[in-house]
């Protein structure tokens, strides 16, 4: 499992793109995340900033269903969340 951690840490440092979806609501949150991931190569990492409530409840779950891997999730001081997602990482 330590290997998985190293891979995750390495990947997060190699963030390829950033997406802020705090200004849109469901289902646009997921649609925008999907569109942003389409621009990336498999394995590349997208950093997503999203709001509490429905977005954090649903977007990670939907990304997982599409085969993308959440490397890390964290709560920001302003109440938003940050996700690091590896494209096709599952």
């Amino acid at each position: 499992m330590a290997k998985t951690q190293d891979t995750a840490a390495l990947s997060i440092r190699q963030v390829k793109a950033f997406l802020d979806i705090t200004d849109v609501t469901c289902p646009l949150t997921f649609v925008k995340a999907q569109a942003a991931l389409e621009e990336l190569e498999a394995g590349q990492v997208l950093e997503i900033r999203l709001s509490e409530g429905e977005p954090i409840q649903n977007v990670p779950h939907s990304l997982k269903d599409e085969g993308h891997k959440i490397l890390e999730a964290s709560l920001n001081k302003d109440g938003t969340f940050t996700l690091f997602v590896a494209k096709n990482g599952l």
Partner: protein
Amino acid sequence: MENLDINTLKKGGFMRQIQKGCFSVRLRTVAGEIKAEQLLKISEIAQEFGHGYIHLTARQGIEIPFIHQNDFAAVKRKLAEAGLEPGVCGPRVRTVTACQGDAICPSGLIDTTALAKELDARYFGLDLPHKLKFGVTGCAHNCLKAEENDVGIRGGFRPCWLEEPCSFCSLCEQVCPAKAIAVDKKRRRLSFREDACTYCGKCAKSCPTGAWQGNSGYLVFVGGLFGNRTAIGRQVLPIISDQDKLFQVIDSVIKFYEQTAKPGERLRATLERVGWDVLQEACQDDEVIAGDREQAVI
């Protein structure tokens, strides 16, 4: 048709209209699912015998208004051609409603449609002291609103955390609506309080590494009302893990209602009159929740 007995007709789902001789024919539906060819037959009947439209009922049913009493036999025969039959009204088990559940919905935790069909097969039309409504919802989103029903069932997920696959990303902590999970990323520790868990399953659904395992189960709510009086059903038993046990519980609830209720008394009123603990004890006497008693939630 001569010697019309309204009670018999109501039992058979023929709802008297204000227009003399006309009835709104309620169909037996389960989980709000109707086959395409059945829709065609319903359409034919509505055009031939009714006024060319149907009414969608509040509980996922269909009624065909303006059926004249002289056409009952013909309408019943036509319905039967498509595997349809009239529904029920009056003091008995009514239409069993359900959301689409885990066969369709990404959020679903149980097969609501299959469960609703089993409930319908076992209890539909059963005569009771008053009406009794079953509703089945697949998850904590509660689209089918389990607690509005006399007996509501909600799919749940009883989670179990595995340390080895966990990457301590903390996503589960962020998505948990009950704040039952706390992750310490630096120390690589996780704490989970089951007493706070609502069995929504969001931890497992979102976990990227499969560190949240567990089993789906059933949460049973009893005593809901949403008519002349509104009251939210209560969860009187802990989460139930298997379907056989679920049906034992439901059998116990029905037996309690049959034996305890006054004629014309809804389950809620019976529970308030004799005490909720009497139902809990009745279920325990039937040994349906052996081993899980200490978790009883009221």
